């Protein structure tokens, strides 16, 4: 298994810079997600690590070895595409064993390794089955088996669960992570689905327009987003943004928002008067008759334990996650409160987070 290091990686296609200046290190055994919308450069980054694209500049190191210009086949990496691609004319055993056969492994060894892989994926009883007879989940397991049978240094996966419906996807996420826990292979997983990244990854790199915006654990990028882009991309519903104008002084514990004083985490930098944005996660909003901030209920969506209540405020539309035991009526006016120590502040022009006491390093030393 291996550590993967990306240094100052650039890739341009003609005029278009697909990736500019990525730097990150993925420690051995980490499940690392590259998360971002389509066109953000995540797949290009993955393809460069795999050796399917050559970078315009920068270096890629696999266990300290510079592999930047090495052929894909010489990198000892397994690339998993959409998991469904199986050879229809072969049975499960032949499908799983195929990569070894291509390498010229002896028949006895192939048999042994395929058995071992099948045990790991719990598909031992399917080895002689025809691929066409398999259920969707089993096909995915076979495709995974084909990737892990070689025991490569790392796995690269490009939206492997993209084509599945929500419930099945969640099941496969659990299986992929379980498998990772069993074999601890360094894995880079590309996805545009924040839920997949959050539920599986040890660390997430959020990409936007060819740049890595933030790298951190799932809880870190959720609690302390480095930018409005990250705050908006992660979480469902995403973070609410309420624009306002004002200046900030280091040590401030309140802001003046819509002529109401709102408590915020202690500000740790100075800012001249300008456009700012208050960021509030839906679950950090409460209703209280006494609150000075008022809004009108636009809609309520029941979700079982919780409900999402949409409130129109002077500064914009808010989505609040509340216990479903609270009853709200459409059109009624409500007082809105915020859980002050979890709020975020952003620069309204650059979208970057303002440094406050709610900063991951400040909270976790």
């Amino acid at each position: 298994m291996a550590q993967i290091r990306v240094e100052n990686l650039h890739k341009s296609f003609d005029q278009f810079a697909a990736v500019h200046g990525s730097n990150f290190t993925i420690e051995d055994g980490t499940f690392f997600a590259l998360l971002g919308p389509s066109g953000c450069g995540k797949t290009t980054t993955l393809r460069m690590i795999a050796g399917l694209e050559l970078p315009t500049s920068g270096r890629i190191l696999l266990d300290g070895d510079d592999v930047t210009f090495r052929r894909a086949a010489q990198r000892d990496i397994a690339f998993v595409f959409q998991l469904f691609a199986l050879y229809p004319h072969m049975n499960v055993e032949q499908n799983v064993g195929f990569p070894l056969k291509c390498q010229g492994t002896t028949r006895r060894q192939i048999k042994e390794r395929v058995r071992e892989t099948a045990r790991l994926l719990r598909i031992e009883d399917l080895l002689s089955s025809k691929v066409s007879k398999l259920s969707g989940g089993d096909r995915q397991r076979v495709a995974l088996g084909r990737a892990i049978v070689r025991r490569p240094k790392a796995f690269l996966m490009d939206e492997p669960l993209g084509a599945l419906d929500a419930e099945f996807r969640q099941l496969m996420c659990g299986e992929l992570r379980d498998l990772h826990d069993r074999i601890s292979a360094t894995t880079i997983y590309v996805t545009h689905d924040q839920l997949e990244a959050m539920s599986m990854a040890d660390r997430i790199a959020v990409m936007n327009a060819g740049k890595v915006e933030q790298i951190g654990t799932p809880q870190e990028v959720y609690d302390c987003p480095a930018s409005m882009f990250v705050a908006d991309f992660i979480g469902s519903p995403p973070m609410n943004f309420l624009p306002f104008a004002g200046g900030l002084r280091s040590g401030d514990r309140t802001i003046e928002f819509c002529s109401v004083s709102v408590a915020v985490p202690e500000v740790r930098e100075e800012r001249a008067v300008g456009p700012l944005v208050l960021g509030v996660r839906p679950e950090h909003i409460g209703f209280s008759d006494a609150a000075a901030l008022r809004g009108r209920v636009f809609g309520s969506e029941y979700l079982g334990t919780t409900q999402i209540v949409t409130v129109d405020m002077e500064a914009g539309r808010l989505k609040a996650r509340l216990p479903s035991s609270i009853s709200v009526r459409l059109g009624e006016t409500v007082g809105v409160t915020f859980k002050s120590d979890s709020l975020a502040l952003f620069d309204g022009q650059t979208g970057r987070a303002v440094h406050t006491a709610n900063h991951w390093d400040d909270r976790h030393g």
Partner: protein
Amino acid sequence: MASVGIRQVSKRFGNVQAVSELSLVVNDGEFVVLLGPSGAGKTTTLRLVAGLEQPDAGSVHIGGRDVTRDPPGTRDIAFVFQQYSLYPHLSVYDNLAFPLRSPARRVVEADIRRRVEQTADLLHISGKLKNPATRLSGGEMQRVAIGRALVRDPSVYLMDEPLSSLDAKLRAELRLELKRIQVELGATILYVTHDQVEAMTMASRIGVIKDGKLLQVGTPREIYENPVDYYVAGRLGLPPINFIPADVLPELPMPAGTRTLGVRTEHVQLGKANGAGFVGRVHRVEHLGDQNHVHLECRNQMLVTLADPHQPVTPGEDVAIRLVNPLYFDGQGHRLQTAVRQG
């Protein structure tokens, strides 16, 4: 607007009993969602109401009138399909006006203009009326498709997974819009989907359908808190409800005949292990930001619970488990009622 009555309707295709003895009333101004997996018979039910299929038995009533033998055109319904099929050579305005320009209707052009503008306003696409239909985003196209149904002002709307081809963000936005429009118009809607979130968030009442049979009809809250059987209990809730064989927990008091317990993820509560009660070992913690999903093993059963994201639990750790408000099911999967109500 009008009510829809489906009475004891059955429909068979070859060997497949697509719908069997299904009865359902959609009251005037109600938003009823039929929820079920593919092949459950939900689209067939919709097509039977529309008149696109003829039932083998039973009857369909719209506005109190038996329409079972009436052709689709005379039923005064509008059908919205999953794939928005707009006329690519027409503008948004002309797409919306198209149903009104049907020779059978004879709506004067001034009325058409008024109705199209009203509808566009309702759907927040007024600024796009002059656009060619092809120069719209996916969400806008689906709005126009829904608009084409609204503009006719029919008695009943039938919708077949109209949001499933959209991406997650747009879907969430249009869910809220569709519900708002339905409330504003007081529209009667029969809507089918396999997406439990759509059903929970929009429906006045949900009908859970499986193998052509309607298993339960009720408000989202009734279906979630008070499912009639094992299947319905597993249909709503993400992550799904935990099912535990009764013999795994012999010390737990439960009604006679209980074979399976159902415990919602939010009803498995974790505490410090103190040697007593049920103990589970944490396998994996999923961080979803606003909450954690904790996967744990208790007496060889895998359970999933919701936990506060900042509650410290680590894989390998033993925790005490408390089960709150379990649901009890017998050997056939039927719910055994108890005095305990969910709160």
